[in-house]
């Protein structure tokens, strides 16, 4: 029986010829990433709950401070110090202030064919390069750190056959929200979302990351693309070689198949408090906002900043609206500086922040107050996700968010242009 890309990666990691959905395997992990959201808990367990603990292979570990950076109170400062000291003691790669963990991982570590565990739900992003990344809790992370292995239940794969090309002014962000709106917030629970077809080839690596990153918002274990020429080119530009390039077999078995015509996708927004509560932007246009956020591991890359800057150039952020612009990594930030984008945002009255998770994770910076409304390129719009339980989060593309920042209310970019 044929296998999908995800099944091939698991089979290789388990050291077996083939796997099928439902099997439980012990797998060797290629890499483990943890951030300041939970690393201090892992360190506590490592030190206090295990006798003579030992890290299997420190070279496989990456620690990234990105959630509250720079630290915003003595408690986070203490937990970050714990993480920093532990990384130093154990010669673990350590990044701080260099970007949101998934963007840092994509720029510096991820290789096609790898099986990567991250103590963060959006680890599924790495499928953009044909890797199997998945989010786990700190106990799973601890187990992987100590043994170099973990267990996986082989998930079924769902095929998303993409055809056509996204129209001008419509983005991968609109596409993934459209997909989640259609299949639901648990539409692919414990499954793999494999994006394929001619339409998939038209998408950039950044677009692919947008899709894979939000696979978890449909409940998926991961999202994945075949590593094609574009992926290999990205890898080469970043000085890396693939571990293995897998393609799904023609006779691979899929749990379901969907077809999405990219040319029919329109700008959409996800309304509070669920990511699958998706409507055309027109339906929520005119709703006054207090804050707009352009950033996150989903939508804070140079491509997204270009969209925002092009739109806001020569215009101003609306009176009494905060427009937060947060590049996803230092690399993105410096590129934006070079291209003059940061100047455009500042000229328009945006607040440009250092690379970090920012308001997408509802702590550290940009948190919204009682009854306030945020339009965001972040990953989630759960109740209270960005601050006060009564506040509301709408999700949209970089274009929709920037247009809304200019209008002071939810707006279509087409109307601003």
């Amino acid at each position, binding site marked *: 029986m044929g296998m999908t890309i995800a099944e091939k990666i698991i089979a290789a990691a388990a050291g077996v010829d083939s796997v099928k959905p439902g099997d439980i395997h012990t797998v060797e992990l290629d890499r483990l990433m943890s951030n300041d959201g939970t690393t201090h808990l892992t360190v506590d367990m490592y030190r206090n709950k295990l006798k003579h603990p030992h890290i299997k292979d420190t070279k496989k570990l990456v620690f990234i401070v990105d959630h509250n950076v720079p630290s915003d109170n003595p*408690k986070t400062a203490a937990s970050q110090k714990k993480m920093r000291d532990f990384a130093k003691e154990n010669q673990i790669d350590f990044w701080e202030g260099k970007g949101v963990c998934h963007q840092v991982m994509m720029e510096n570590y991820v290789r096609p064919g790898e099986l990567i565990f991250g*103590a963060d*739900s959006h680890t599924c992003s790495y499928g953009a390069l044909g890797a199997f990344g998945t989010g786990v809790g700190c106990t799973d992370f601890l187990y992987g750190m100590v043994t170099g292995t973990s267990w996986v239940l082989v998930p079924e794969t769902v095929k998303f056959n993409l055809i056509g090309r996204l129209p001008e002014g419509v983005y991968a962000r609109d596409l993934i929200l459209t997909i989640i709106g259609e299949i639901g917030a648990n539409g692919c629970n414990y499954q793999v979302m494999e994006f394929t077809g001619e339409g998939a080839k038209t998408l950039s690596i950044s677009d692919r990351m947008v899709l894979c990153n939000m696979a978890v918002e449909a409940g998926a274990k991961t999202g994945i693309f075949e590593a094609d020429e574009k992926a290999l080119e990205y890898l080469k530009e970043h000085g890396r070689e693939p571990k293995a390039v897998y393609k799904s077999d023609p006779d691979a078995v899929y749990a379901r198949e969907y077809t999405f015509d990219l040319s029919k996708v329109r700008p959409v927004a996800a309304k509070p408090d669920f990511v699958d509560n998706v409507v055309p932007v027109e339906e929520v246009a005119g709703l006054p906002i207090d804050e707009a956020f352009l950033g996150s591991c989903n939508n804070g890359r140079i491509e997204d900043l270009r969209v925002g800057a092009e739109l806001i150039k020569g215009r101003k952020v609306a009176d009494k609206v905060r427009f937060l612009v947060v590049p996803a990594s230092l690399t993105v930030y410096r590129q934006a500086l070079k291209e003059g984008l940061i100047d455009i945002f500042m000229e328009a009255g945006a607040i440009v922040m250092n690379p970090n998770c920012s308001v997408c994770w509802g702590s550290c910076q940009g948190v919204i107050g009682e009854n306030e409304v945020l339009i965001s390129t972040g990953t989630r719009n759960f109740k209270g996700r960005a601050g006060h339980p009564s506040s509301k989060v709408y999700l949209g593309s970089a274009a929709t968010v920037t247009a809304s920042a200019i209008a002071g209310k939810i707006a279509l970019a087409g109307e601003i242009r």
Partner: protein
Amino acid sequence: METSFTGRIWVLGDDIDTDIIIPTEYLALKTIDDMKQYGFSPLRPELAGEIRKGDIIVAGKNFGCGSSREQAPEIIKALGIQCVIAKSFARIFFRNSINNGLLLIEQPELHDHVKEGDEVTVVMNQHVDHNGKQYPIASLPENLMDILRAGGLVKAMRKLNGLD
């Protein structure tokens, strides 16, 4: 782990996410015991104070969706909840719960027939009983049961290593 147990139930809806189970702003608190009073606070601020040891949560689909924060199952366990019965669970939450020794049971129909304050009886690996009706439940794979019986993954590791 008991082969059967009875508990009073709290009924929650669909898509109970990890930001509802424990909002980000309380994650900086030092211990799970400090955090647990804020469990479910965006949805029902009074709930954490009213849950008693041995209670059971019955919820709709996609319970635990969202972030990988392991404080979510830890808080539910610390509040004294002995198991969560839902139509379905989000996968990271599922793993985290097993790893922390919190029992989760999938049952697609029960939620539609119960009201808060009712009692249900769980007969492990067989069925959940409510008002004289039996709702069938699947049994967990043996390797996951081993983790649960040990009280979580770390404890299971200690057992494997002969430390306990």
